[in-house]
């Protein structure tokens, strides 16, 4: 698979009169052209998309995925370092003659930004919300076509608590889709007490109605695959049967349950691909799921207990309101990538010293994969033999696929990749106002401190903006005027959104150098043609969970 990672963080000059990306952007240099054929293999990773190979630029939408780079020739890996090197391409080709000067009206911008927004309010009983969660806002902005990010949210019905997660797929969206459908069931089952498991199993056994395990909170665009549901259910049932057999009698620990669920699901994905399915569609599906990959960042909130299970480089962040009303961010997850020294250390520990140099190259696992933990991606997990056997016995589509046949370089002691999450437990405090789960598309454009401030100010509303008091300070009229102008800009951007996630995306995409939303910039970024969008931004998926400080405060008092 040829991957041409587009430059992902490009500062579009604010006052440029023409669409600067058309001249400044990375075009695919002509000498790369022969490699483009390889893009065929990308089909394995995309469930529903068709590649318009005739168009040069379409590369980017499929191959530019930064999570996964496959560079048969080293020089490409060196060339296409997304963040630092995009300038190299500036002179490669001049697109300026292309008439691309359409701007979006604010209404059009809003309709794009709001297309995928979803809000859920925890229902109140007797006019009181007894949950520690008030509700959540979520939204997605695609850069890939189709989007490779997924999100899920559900309330556990047989145990307490709420589950929320974001999933960033790579090499297609099949794995992310599967994980978004299945993971919460695995977690919920892991959390269930022995009796409930028995009850469920009996119900299935006797064909009785099943106790509902999860109540999903889904946007109409969030779909579940109907075809695979039987397959998925059988795997899940096998899992709970094993849990019943294993009955330890101990109460379920959330941390363990999360870890078990993650690992079990990844294992099932791998097994299903190995076993195959007589149904050719399903057989192809399970292979696509296994050969693509996905990160997962999942939050489990139950009362004041917040668990974050993270695999990969999505991130969970807690928004904390300080006593003076200002906002600060607390990380509740560690990124599993080359920037995380512990993670690099872990990978190195798991493999012989001889591989130390080839393990992490250009900040990627085996020089290819950006996240160091992920679901799927069996190419980094199976032995070479297994890979070859599965590919050969698999359907033609798989067999024709260059990517699946390709074995990562220096592939000696698999597995190199795990889906095991790191779990962080946090006891919620009244000052913890909200939780942001987001894929790296957000975090690479915004600092978490800004995220905390923007969401915090949004949620508390404009009226809570601290009034300015001059007091005894020396403030000039000019300084005050500047300050007020800034505050006004902030307020006006808040008023447009009813959804915190949408508001955050607006800032992530439209922020100018002053940290305020610039409509012109926003309009340009959103009107990028599909095939170029991926070079300027990644898919963004955000869930903002708002906590109920009163309930949390009450919990705290009980404990005291």
């Amino acid at each position, binding site marked *: 698979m040829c991957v041409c990672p587009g430059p992902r963080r490009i500062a579009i000059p604010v006052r440029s009169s023409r669409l600067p990306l058309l001249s400044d952007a990375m075009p695919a240099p002509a000498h790369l052209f022969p490699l483009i054929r390889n893009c065929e293999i990308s089909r394995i990773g995309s469930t529903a998309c068709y590649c318009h190979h005739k168009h040069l630029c379409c590369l980017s939408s499929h191959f530019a995925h930064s999570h996964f780079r496959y560079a048969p020739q080293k020089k490409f890996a060196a060339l296409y370092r997304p963040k630092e090197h995009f300038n190299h391409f500036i002179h490669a080709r001049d697109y300026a003659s292309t008439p691309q000067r359409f701007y979006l009206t604010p209404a059009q911008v809003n309709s794009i930004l709001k297309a995928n927004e979803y809000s859920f309010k925890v229902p109140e009983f007797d006019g009181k919300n007894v949950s520690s969660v008030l509700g959540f806002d979520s939204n997605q902005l695609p850069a890939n076509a189709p989007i490779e990010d997924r999100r899920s949210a559900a309330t556990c019905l047989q145990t307490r608590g709420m589950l929320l997660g974001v999933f960033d797929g790579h090499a297609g969206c099949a794995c992310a889709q599967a994980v978004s459908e299945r993971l919460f069931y695995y977690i919920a089952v892991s959390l269930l007490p022995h009796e409930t498991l028995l009850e469920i199993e009996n119900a299935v056994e006797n064909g009785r109605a099943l106790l509902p395990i999860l109540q999903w909170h889904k946007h109409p665009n969030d779909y579940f695959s109907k075809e695979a549901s039987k397959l998925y259910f059988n795997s899940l049932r096998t899992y709970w049967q094993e849990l019943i057999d294993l009955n330890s009698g101990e109460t379920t620990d959330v941390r363990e349950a999360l870890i078990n669920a993650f690992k079990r699901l990844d294992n099932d994905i791998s097994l299903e691909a190995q076993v195959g399915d007589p149904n050719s569609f399903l057989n192809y599906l399970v292979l696509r799921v296994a050969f693509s990959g996905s990160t997962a960042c999942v939050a489990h909130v139950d009362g004041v207990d917040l668990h974050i299970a993270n695999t990969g480089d999505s991130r969970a962040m807690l928004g904390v309101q300080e006593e003076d009303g200002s906002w600060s961010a607390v990380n509740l997850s560690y990124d599993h990538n080359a920037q995380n020294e512990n993670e690099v250390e872990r990978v190195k520990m798991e493999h012989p010293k001889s591989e130390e140099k080839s393990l992490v190259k250009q900040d990627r696992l085996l020089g290819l994969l950006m996240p160091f933990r992920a679901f799927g991606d069996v190419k980094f997990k199976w032995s070479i033999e297994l890979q070859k056997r599965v590919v050969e016995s698999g359907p033609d589509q798989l067999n024709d696929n260059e990517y699946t046949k390709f074995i990562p370089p220096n592939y000696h002691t698999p597995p190199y990749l795990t889906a095991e999450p790191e779990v962080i437990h946090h006891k919620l405090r009244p000052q913890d106002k909200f939780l942001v789960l987001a894929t790296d598309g957000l975090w690479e454009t915004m600092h978490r401190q800004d995220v905390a401030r923007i969401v915090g100010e949004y949620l508390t509303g404009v009226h809570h903006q601290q009034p300015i008091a001059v007091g005894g300070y020396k403030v000039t009229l000019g300084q005050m005027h500047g300050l*007020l102008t800034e505050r006004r800009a902030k307020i006006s951007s808040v008023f447009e959104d009813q959804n915190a996630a949408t508001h955050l995306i607006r800032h992530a995409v439209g922020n100018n150098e002053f940290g305020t939303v610039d409509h012109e910039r926003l309009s340009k970024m959103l009107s990028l043609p599909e095939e170029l969008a991926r070079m300027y931004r990644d898919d963004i998926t955000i869930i903002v969970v708002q906590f109920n400080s009163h309930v949390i405060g009450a919990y705290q008092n009980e404990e005291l």
Partner: protein
Amino acid sequence: MFLRLLSDIQWRAAHPKWRRMTSSQRSTSTTAEPHPVSLPAQAQVVICGGGIIGTSVAYHLSKMGFKDIVLLEQGRLAAGTTRFCAGIVSTARPVSIELKMAHYSNKLYQQLEQETGVQTGYMKTGSISLAQTQDRLISLKRIASSLNVMGIPCEIISPKKVLQLHPLINIHDLVGAMYLPEDALVSSANVSLALATAASRNGVQIHERTSVSHVTIQKGRVTGVETDRGRIQCEYFVNCAGQWAYELGHSGEEPVHIPVHACEHFYLLTHPLQEPVSSSLPTIVDPDGRIYIRNWQGGILSGGFEKNPKPLFTEGRNQLEIQNLQEDWDHFGPLLGALLRRMPGLEALQIMQLVNCPESFTPDMRCIMGESPTARGYFVLAGMNSAGISYGGGAGKYLAEWIVNGYPSENVWPLDLKRFGTLQSSRTFLRHRVMEVMPLMYDLKVPRWDFQTGRQLRTSPLYDRLDAQGARWMEKHGFERVKYFVPPGNDLLDLDHSKTFYKPDWFDIVGSEVKCCKEAVCVIDMSSFTKFEISSTGDQALESLQYLFANDLDVPVGHVVHTGMLNENGGYENDCSIARLSKRSFFMISPTDQQVHCWAWLKNHLPDDSNLVLEDVTWKYTALNLIGPRAVDVLSELSYAPMTAEHFPSLFCKEMSVGYANGIRVMSITHTGEPGFVLYIPIEYALHVYNEVMNMGQKYGIRNAGYYALRSLRIEKFFAFWGQDLDAFTTPMECGREFQVKLDKGMEFLGQEVLLEQKQNGVYKRFTMFILEDHDTDMDLWPWWGEPIFRNGRYVGKTTSSAYSYTLERHVCLGFVHHFDEKTGEKLVVTTDFINQGEYEIDIAGQRFQAKAKLYPFSSLFTQRRRKDEVELSGYQRE
């Protein structure tokens, strides 16, 4: 302590401590000092409120000879809005009476320090009002015209000249400015204290820390005041409680409705500039930027009237003294931006404070003055719309005159409390309205603008029908009235764009309505007019009315009489049409805004007789005015009754059936001089009669029309309207209406002596009609009202109303001509010859247009059937 100082005159004059206390910041100690002087048990006048207004009233009352006056202040003197007020005294006011008050205030404050020895900080700095647009410049020129004829120095200057006068100003976006060199700055609290000092020297007792809980009213008269320190019996009570005036008015058993509502008002104080701003630097008013800027202790003071005001105290939260409310920088932001645009050099100037000082506003941007319509002796002076300092002196003087003489020396109807009724007293209404009024302070006010808030309160039953037919509405005394009807498919520009001093976009629409009135028939819904019924068991009604009205009401039943309701001086308190329904009952129609005033006047003047019944039936009738030569046909077809002049003469009234509806009161008057009828329809029949009229009228070319058409018609016919042209200072003799006065009706009536005297000796002003000669309707500024009239180059008076006459194809202005002695300025008798032998010019925003003066309408132009009043008019011409 302070109290004793005020009451102990001799001690105060000598003691230096007094001076220090008045000119320095007052001590903020909150411990209540023992009251050294107990309240008197009774007084002639009790004034509540120790701000600029209360002290000014006390000052003027005591000067006019009232001795027994008590002034009560709940906190400290001049500690409320007065203390926080920006202290600008400016005469740049569009309304003539307000201009006069401001002018007087300025003169008063100037000599106050000399008179009282209290430093008032009076500084004649002048003021410059800036214009960023041509329209704004026109509005300034209009003000300048009226200032000039009053002898107040005033100049329209170029932006360059502005820069010479005020070096800090950025002039690049200015088109011109108005310079008033006499405008001044004062320390408002000290002015108030100076007035208090002078008043106490004249015997006024001032008691601080005394709250009025309520005013006792018995049999419609003020009898006393209950305070937290005891009761004071009094003859007059004056409510000068500023933003608490509404609450105080409502505190008693019988509420006195004073429609004021407070809004937060912000201004900025800065530290001195590096090179301190001179204390003689003129004040800047930049209405397009919504700000004012004055010099203040070497720095500047700048505030404004923002677009989004913050109303305050809607629920009436009371406070002893207005604490400095929260500063709100975000709210002030746009004004700060405007300030820095106007004076970019101030960027580095350091902020001292943002002051939040509530100001009270009224529903129509004019202050509230006068006697309560329900409680005699209960006077009000409040709602200064943030111009308390500018108006304070003059307003206090007029109110004092009102109390002492029964009426002030000028026409203050525009400020009279009685222009409002209970309907403007809703807190919701006030809250919404003042939010519109406050920005209006600096909005461009073009002819015929209407308030947008607090609308659709009183409507005719036909409102929806008319609205659906394209009616555009204006409001009078809460009542929705049609301005004109926009024909379908005719898209008028929306409100903001149609703001103009020139030919308005409705010109042709109204033209076609007028044409229809002249040639076919139009229907105008005139339900808003005030309607009273007066009846008695015996002759009381006739006798009382004969005394109150100048015309002879002893006419056969079924006749309608136009007559003035005059005061002792022969001036019009009201101008009405009265129909004699039966021997003992009368139906009286007066202007819409007379509802409260006329009621109060009749209540006060009718004998207290249970057999004499006065009833307000305004709400009971819908009035449809059918105007035009074919009205006769429409009505006779609908009623199967002959309606021609032989059967239904002019100025006649009869109950008849129209369509299925019976008991419709039909009168052959139209308020325009055109032929036609007014139908007074019990409201449940309104829709039916309207539908019948419209259906039947179709073949006669009937259409709806609005008040703009009516106005054009009545002005070209030289019909004066009360409130516009006529006021309490105008007699029938002065406006060519001697025919409506029956000096020999064999009964004494109010104002008779004055009228008799005028008949013999002549009048000192004459209502005159002017036809603009060289005025281009399409290109030139339109007259409005208040334009100065020049005779042979000398100022002789002002116009009172104007309209385009579609018949004459000329503008017509109505106005009063005086004859000032060329040397002394003394008013001389105005004769017909004086009017006829002059060359006239009308000054519209500084541009003079030749005008032809006429004392009688163009009866020859109007070939319609002669009507009774016109016959009488021609009779008058012969004299």
